[in-house]
C-alpha cells in the first residue's frame, strides 16, 4: 500500500523537475514582458488577461458544470460598478474594492443560479440573456450609476504604489489572472470540481452519489460570476472609465464563444481561447493596420463593402471561428492540441484524448 503523498501526486500541479522548469520559464516571460514592450502593447496584454479571467469563470460554469450563460457581461458590469462605487462613495482603496466587487457579483451569480435550477437549456440561455440586458438597462437609466454617461474611475493605489501606469496595472492584472488560474485549476481537480463535472455528465447519478445538485449549481454560477466581477473591476482600473455601453450582449457572446473555441472543460483551452478572442475584440477597430492583410482588407472593403464598416470584420471572424470550431473540431483548441499530440507521437487520435463533449480533466502545467 503506498503512502499518502503517492496519491496526492494525482492532483499535484508540479510533478517532476520538468514542470518546475516550465513554470519558471513562464514566470520569467510574464514578468519581463512589460519591460520589453511599449505602452499600448501592455494595454493589449492587460486586456487579454482580463478576458482570461472571465474565460476561467465561464469554463467553470459552462465547461465543467454544463450550464449556459449569455449574460456574463452583466456580471462584469456588476463587478466594475461595485468596485468603482466603493472607491468613489466609500473611499475604499482599490485592493479592498476589488475583492468586494467580486463578492457582490458572486451574490448576484448565486441569485441568478436560483432560477437556473428549474430551467432547462434554452430557457436558461434566454433568462441569462435577459439578465445581462436588464443589468445594463438598469445601470443606464439610473443616475446613481452615472446613467449612460458612465463613471470615471478614480486613481487607484496599492498601498504606496500608484496603479495609474500601464506597467503597474499589468502586474496587478496579470498577477491576478495567474492566481485565479491556479485557483480554478485546484478547484477543478478536487471535490468541488468533480461535483461540477458530475452534474454536467449525469445529474441523476450525481444526486444519487450524494451531490447536492442545487447547491453546486448555484455555487457554480456564483463562482463564475465572481471571476467576471473581478475581471470587471480590473477592467475599470485599466480603462479609467466605465459605462453600460461596454457590457453588451455581444460581449457576453464573446465570452461564451471563447470557451467553446478554447475547448470546454479545459483550463489551458479556456486561457488560450480567451487570449485569442480578447485580442480580436480589442483590435477590431484597427484591422487596417495589420501588415499585408490590412491594406488588402481596406481595398476590398471600399470596392465591395463599405469602408466605414471595416471594424465589423472582427465579428465576421469571431462568428466564423465559432462556427468552424463546432463543425471541424468541437473540442476546440484543446481538441486540436490533443490531435496534434497524437499525430506527433504516432498514436491514432481517436482513442484517448478529450471527451465527445467538454474535454477531460486538466493536466498539470503542460
Amino acid at each position, binding site marked *: *500500500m*503506498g503512502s*499518502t*503523498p*503517492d*496519491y*496526492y501526486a*494525482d*492532483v*499535484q500541479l508540479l510533478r517532476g523537475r520538468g514542470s518546475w522548469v516550465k513554470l519558471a520559464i513562464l514566470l520569467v516571460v510574464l514578468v519581463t514582458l512589460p519591460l520589453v514592450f511599449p505602452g499600448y502593447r501592455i494595454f493589449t496584454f492587460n486586456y487579454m488577461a482580463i478576458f482570461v479571467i472571465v474565460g476561467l469563470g465561464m469554463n467553470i460554469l459552462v465547461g465543467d458544470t454544463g450550464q449556459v450563460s449569455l449574460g456574463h457581461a452583466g456580471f462584469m458590469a456588476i463587478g466594475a460598478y461595485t468596485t468603482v462605487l466603493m472607491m468613489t462613495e466609500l473611499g475604499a482603496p482599490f485592493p479592498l474594492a476589488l475583492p468586494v466587487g467580486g463578492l457582490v457579483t458572486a451574490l448576484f451569480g448565486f441569485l441568478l443560479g436560483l432560477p437556473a435550477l428549474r430551467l432547462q437549456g434554452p430557457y436558461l440561455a434566454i433568462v441569462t440573456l435577459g439578465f445581462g440586458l436588464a443589468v445594463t438597462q438598469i445601470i443606464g437609466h439610473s443616475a446613481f450609476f452615472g446613467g449612460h454617461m458612465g463613471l470615471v474611475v478614480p486613481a487607484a493605489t496599492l498601498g504606496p504604489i500608484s496603479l495609474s501606469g500601464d506597467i503597474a496595472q499589468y502586474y496587478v492584472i496579470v498577477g491576478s489572472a495567474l492566481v485565479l488560474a491556479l*485557483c480554478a485549476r*485546484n*478547484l477543478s*481537480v*478536487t*471535490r*468541488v*470540481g*468533480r*461535483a461540477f*463535472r*458530475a452534474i*454536467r*455528465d*449525469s445529474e*441523476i*447519478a*450525481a*444526486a*444519487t*452519489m*450524494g*451531490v*447536492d*445538485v442545487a447547491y453546486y449549481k448555484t*455555487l457554480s454560477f456564483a*463562482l463564475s460570476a465572481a471571476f467576471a466581477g473581478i475581471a470587471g473591476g480590473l477592467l475599470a482600473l485599466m480603462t479609467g472609465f466605465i459605462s453600460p455601453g461596454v457590457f453588451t450582449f455581444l460581449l457576453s457572446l464573446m465570452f461564451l464563444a471563447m470557451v467553446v473555441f478554447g475547448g470546454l*472543460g479545459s483550463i489551458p483551452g479556456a486561457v488560450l481561447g480567451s487570449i485569442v478572442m480578447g485580442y480580436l475584440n480589442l483590435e477590431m477597430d484597427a484591422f487596417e493596420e495589420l501588415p499585408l492583410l490590412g491594406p488588402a482588407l481596406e481595398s476590398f472593403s471600399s470596392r465591395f463593402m463599405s469602408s466605414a464598416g471595416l471594424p465589423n470584420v472582427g465579428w465576421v471572424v469571431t462568428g466564423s471561428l465559432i462556427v468552424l470550431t463546432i463543425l471541424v473540431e468541437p473540442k476546440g483548441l484543446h481538441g486540436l492540441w490533443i490531435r496534434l499530440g497524437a499525430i506527433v507521437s504516432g498514436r491514432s487520435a481517436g*482513442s*484517448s484524448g478529450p*471527451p*465527445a*463533449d*467538454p*474535454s*477531460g*480533466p486538466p493536466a498539470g502545467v503542460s
Partner: protein
Amino acid sequence: MAFFAVEGLTMRFGGLTALDDVSFEVERATIFSVIGPNGSGKSTTFNCINGIHRPTAGSVHFEGERISGLRPHHIARRGIARTFQNIELFGNESTIDNLMLGRHLHMTTGVWGGVTMVNGRTRAARDEGENRERVQHILELLDLDSVRERPVRELPYGTQKRVELARALAMEPKLLLVDEPSAGMNAQERTELGERLGRLRTDLDLTILLIEHQLQLAMGLADRVLVLNFGKAIAQGTPEEVRRHPEVIKAYLGDE
C-alpha cells in the same frame, strides 16, 4: 424493526400506475432480489427508494427512519447507494474520478480548501490522497486498475458496468441497490458477477437489493425474492417458495 422496509409503495405517472401497493422487508447482510418481466416496475421501485421519484403513496423506511420523500442526495447520505440499468456514469471522467465522486460524501474539501491546495501538506491534499488510497483497493477488487485513468465512455460495456458498481461501493454504503448488473454479460461474466456480489455480502457485511432479469443469477444469489408483475407484488419468499408459486409461473410463461 426491519433494517429496510417498503410499505404500500404506489407510484402513478399521470394515468399510468407503475407500482401498486408493493410491500417487502429486507434484513441486514442479506441479498434480496426483485424480479419480474419487463415493465413490471422494478426500476421504478429503485427510483422511489433512492429518491428520484416521490412515491404517490406508501413509505420506505431504512434503519427505522422514513426516507421516502427525501431527495436523492439525502438518501445517499443515509448510506444507500445504487447502480443504474442504463449506465449513468460520468462519461467524460476517468474511472478513478468516477470512483472519487463516489467518495463525495466522505470528503470534506470545499471551495476554499480546494482553491488553497498549494502543497501536499494541506488538508485538501490529504483528503485527496487518503480517499484515493481507499478507492484503490476497490479498483483492484473489481479489476479496474488497468483502466484507472481512461475516460469511462471509452470503456467496453461490461467494464462500464463494473465501474458503476465500483463507484457505488466507493460510497461505503450500508445498502446497495444493483439494477440489472448482468445486462450484456455472457455466462462466464455472470458467474463471476454472482460470486462477486456474494463476496460483497460476506466480506463487507453489505445488504444488497438486486434487480435482475436473469432468473438463474437472481435465484442462485438471493436469500429472499420479490416478484413483480404489472406493478404488483405477486409473490415473495425464498427462491424455492417463489419458484413454485403458480402466479410466478404464469407471469413468466412466454417470457424468455
